[in-house]
């Protein structure tokens, strides 16, 4: 803006200078023109003077000649008509010849005796002009010249007189006069617009004027004395003589009453002492006259020039202004780019620094200072090498920095920086030099990449690789060892093992497989079951393996294989094999001959069933014996005791009391026997059936354990025998478990008969348990219930979860009985 203001002021000044120059030139021209005009005016004045002088002296000689003419002397001497006529004729002749206004002759008294105008109305003859100076001068023998307004003719004229002498006489006898008209002279003073020419007498009366209205007026104001003198001389009539109003203002300047200024010059007229020719030069008109041509030519030129100048100034100003704007934009862009560069430099998330030629840091990026833990102020001006580890410093000072300033760049130089806290950063430093315009290095631009982590990682990687290599060797040997082991296992295991691919073709069989089916591993490889196995076996294998492949789940299944007409049961575990991507590539089967186990299991089950049955029988027997036999006997005993008591009640109170004690003892014993019997096996189960037995048991359970026990049942067939026993025992066991372990407050037994099944459900609101984590005793209880259920062909099912209570369900078909 400042520059622009300066430019503006300069433009203004240029314009002003142009204007002033134009004006000065104009004034100079004007002055010059003015001077020219003045000079020409003076010239003209001189010319006029010459003319006038010539005019005024023109008739001095003729009049002298005329005065010497005899007729005139004769006339004066004789005064007779003859001589007068001759004189008149002479006068007429002179008048005609000289082309003057009038020629006349006066006597010594001043009376006109002859005149060329004697026949005119204003004839001078007889007139006395003795008051005129020219008469007086002539009478004294001097030639006279006089300018005056004619008293008779009322015409201005120049009077030339000369004394007329008698022969050889010294005193004049009269005077001859020639009066020349002013008219011609006045015509010489052609009026001009710019100037006024006047002929004034010594008192300032204007006698001849180029401006007619000023005639007989006074050039300057006169005092009354002079006026009186003027009137007395009657030189210019009788007046009045008005003042023109001109006033002198300085040597060469006069002002008229209207304020118009005139340049004033005057010259004396020769031989007319006091008479002057006055030249008044109208300054305004003159300047007009001068300036008009100037104006008409110069002004447009100046205006055009000024306009052109103004236009060019304006144009240049615009150009300059645009240039300024452009420069400013460029400057701004430059500054911005500089700022951006600076910001980029500082903000770049990289370790940037610059050093000067002496190796001192001149700038560092924020990241640099953050990475090293210094503030910028702490590092600027210090040597870069101050921040290097001793090894790096030596390396830098001796080798890298000299090379760098010689070559202009370095790349990936490994340095170690020391952070403010003493930690070491490993970096790779690359740098280029920055030159000024004279190709002198002014600073460097260096970027360091923190490779501490990378180096650590690389070292770790290297170590890991070594470890891996040794591990992999170890692994290889382990694999070899394991392979040998597995091969051994496969070879010597009693299990039949094979692997099939996803299409069901054998990939591997072990030696047991070979023995079992009488084949050789290479022969079966790539073959399907059907290709070399008996149809029923092939069918079994194919079906189960296909299921594993389809469901992608391991499967445990019993397979029967006939060997030497004996059916062998194999427990086969089959599981899918996966490749690295989790795709099923095949199936592996491991089959163990469990024929013996199976038989043993079967025997065990039968044994357990018979034990249970036997135990149940035993219990029933014992219960019955206790309840019916011992109980009955006790009852009978009690009757006896009561009888005795009643009998001796009156006679022997002591015996009666003893009988009562006995009675109570018997009652207690009966209770115990009953309890024992019922615990062994409730009679209700045998006499009334399952529903009643469970009803009794639940009520008894509630009473004994103070756990609310609800029993709900449908109407159904009366269940007795083994089924009733199993159902009762399962219910009993389940409720016992509730009382022992569940910490329940409520339990509910539901018995329903639907779909030809008996279904008993025992629920509780107790703490529940993880089925997998049952203790041995509880597990055995469960197993017992399961066993009982399976013995009668039923299904036993437990559901429980921690804090969710337990539900036990026993379902058995009622087809039998």
């Amino acid at each position, binding site marked *: 803006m400042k520059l622009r203001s300066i430019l503006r002021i300069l433009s203004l000044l240029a314009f002003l200078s142009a204007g002033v120059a134009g004006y000065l030139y104009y004034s100079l021209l004007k002055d010059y023109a003015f001077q020219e005009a003045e000079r020409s005016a003076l010239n003209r004045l001189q010319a006029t003077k010459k003319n006038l002088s010539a005019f005024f002296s023109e008739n001095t000689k003729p009049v002298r000649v005329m005065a010497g003419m005899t007729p005139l002397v004769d006339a004066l001497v004789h005064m007779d008509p003859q001589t007068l006529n001759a004189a008149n004729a002479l006068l007429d002749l002179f008048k005609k010849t000289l082309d003057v206004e009038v020629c006349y002759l006066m006597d010594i008294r001043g009376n006109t005796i002859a005149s060329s105008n004697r026949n005119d109305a204003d004839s001078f003859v007889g007139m006395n002009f003795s008051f005129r100076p020219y008469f007086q001068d002539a009478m004294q023998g001097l030639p006279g010249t006089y300018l005056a307004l004619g008293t008779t003719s009322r015409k201005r004229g120049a009077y030339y007189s000369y004394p007329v002498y008698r022969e050889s006489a010294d005193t004049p006898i009269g005077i001859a006069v020639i009066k020349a008209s002013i008219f011609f002279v006045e015509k010489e003073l052609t009026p001009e617009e710019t100037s006024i020419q006047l002929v004034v007498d010594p008192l300032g009366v204007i006698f001849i004027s180029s401006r007619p209205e000023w005639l007989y007026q006074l050039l300057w104001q006169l005092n009354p004395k002079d006026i009186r003198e003027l009137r007395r001389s009657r030189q210019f009539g009788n007046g009045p003589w008005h003042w023109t109003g001109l006033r002198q203002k300085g040597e060469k300047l006069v002002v008229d009453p209207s304020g118009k200024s005139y340049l004033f010059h005057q010259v004396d007229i020769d031989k007319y002492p006091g008479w002057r020719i006055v030249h008044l030069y109208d300054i305004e008109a003159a300047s007009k006259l001068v300036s008009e041509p100037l104006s008409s030519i110069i002004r447009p030129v100046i205006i055009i020039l000024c306009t052109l100048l103004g236009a060019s100034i304006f144009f240049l100003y615009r150009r300059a202004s645009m240039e300024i704007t452009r420069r400013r934009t460029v400057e701004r862009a430059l500054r911005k780019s500089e700022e951006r560069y600076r910001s980029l430099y500082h903000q770049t998330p990289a370790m940037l620094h610059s050093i000067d030629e002496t190796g001192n840091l001149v700038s560092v990026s924020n990241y640099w200072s953050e990475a090293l833990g210094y503030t910028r102020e702490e590092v600027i001006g210090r040597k870069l090498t101050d921040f290097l580890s001793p090894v790096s410093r030596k390396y830098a000072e001796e080798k890298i920095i000299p090379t760098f300033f010689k070559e202009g760049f370095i790349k990936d130089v490994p340095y170690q920086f020391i952070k403010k806290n003493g930690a070491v950063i490993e970096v790779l430093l690359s740098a280029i030099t920055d030159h000024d315009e004279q190709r002198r290095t002014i600073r460097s631009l260096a970027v360091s990449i923190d490779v501490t982590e990378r180096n650590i990682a690389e070292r770790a990687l290297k170590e890991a690789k070594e470890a891996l290599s040794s591990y992999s060797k170890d692994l290889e040997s382990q694999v070899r060892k394991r392979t040998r082991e597995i091969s051994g296992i496969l070879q010597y295991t009693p299990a039949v093992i094979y692997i099939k691919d996803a299409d069901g073709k054998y990939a591997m069989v072990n030696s047991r497989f070979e023995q079992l089916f009488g084949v050789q591993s290479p022969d079966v490889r790539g073959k399907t079951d059907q290709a070399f196995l008996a149809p029923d076996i092939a069918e079994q294998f194919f079906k189960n393996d296909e299921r594993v492949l389809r469901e992608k789940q391991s499967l445990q299944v019993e397979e029967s294989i006939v060997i030497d007409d004996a059916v062998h049961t194999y427990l086969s575990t089959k599981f899918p094999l996966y490749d690295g991507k989790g795709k099923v590539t095949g199936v592996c089967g491991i089959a163990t001959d469990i024929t013996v186990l199976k038989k043993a299991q079967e025997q065990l089950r039968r044994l357990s069933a018979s034990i249970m049955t036997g135990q149940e029988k035993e219990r029933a027997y014992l219960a019955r014996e206790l309840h019916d036999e011992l109980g009955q006997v006790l009852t009978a005993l009690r009757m006896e005791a009561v009888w005795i008591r009643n009998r001796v009640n009156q006679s022997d109170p002591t015996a009666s009391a003893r009988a009562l004690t006995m009675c109570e003892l018997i009652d207690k014993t009966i209770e115990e026997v009953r309890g024992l019997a019922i615990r062994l096996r409730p009679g209700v189960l045998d*006499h009334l059936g399952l529903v009643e037995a469970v009803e*009794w048991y639940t*009520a008894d359970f509630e009473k004994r354990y103070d756990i609310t026990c609800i029993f709900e049942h449908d109407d159904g067939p009366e269940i007795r025998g083994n089924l009733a026993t199993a159902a009762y025992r399962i219910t009993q066991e389940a409720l016992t478990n509730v009382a022992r372990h569940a910490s329940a407050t409520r339990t509910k037994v539901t018995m329903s008969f639907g779909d030809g099944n008996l279904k008993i459900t025992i629920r509780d609101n107790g703490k529940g348990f993880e089925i997998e984590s049952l203790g041995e005793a509880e597990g055995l209880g469960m197993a017992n219930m399961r066993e009982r259920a399976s013995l009668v062909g039923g299904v036993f099912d437990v559901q429980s979860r921690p804090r969710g209570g337990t539900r036990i369900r026993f379902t058995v078909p009622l087809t039998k009985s």
Partner: protein
Amino acid sequence: MIKVLLADDHSIVRAGLRRIVEESGDMTVVAEASDGREAVLAVRKERPDVAVIDISMPVLDGLEVIAQLKSESPEVPILVLTMHEEHQYVVRAIETGAMGYITKQSAPEQLVKAIRKVHSGSLFLTDAAAEALALRVAKGSGTQSPLDTLSTRELQVLRRLALGNTNREIASAYHISIKTVDTYRFRLLKKLSLRNNADLSRFAIQNHLIET
């Protein structure tokens, strides 16, 4: 003289019973049976005024005897005399047609009274037996009863409360603490959405748990 039949497979028990019956003075044992079949035959032959039948008997058990006698000789009132105290027996016996039920244990004290009662055409039941019967009748009256959701003990307490028993009385009847009775009461009210004992009574009557 009331003619009484005694059916029991234990001779010593029979002997004791005979003595009790005969010592009453106005009763006489007209026949004894040691199994169910004998009992049925004896009734046919002797036409006793009252048949006293044990439940556990060989050949035909007591319940079968009752059923048979009920169809053959419905006019002979049957008194069940048994070792079994379980209410299930009481209910079954009465359902089958017996007029009374007593345990052998209580025979010296109650047998004569019971025979007289059934002979007069009335039911003879101990309080506990009566209660069991009432509970069963109530529960068995409809297929879906609100009582189904109650346990036996709850039903017992409910009935007692409905009958106007105090907590103390109930507690002593079932050998439980008064506090437990109160717990039961509270639980019943909550379970059945009732407010007070009056509601409980009304509920018990509506569900035939007690008779009006």
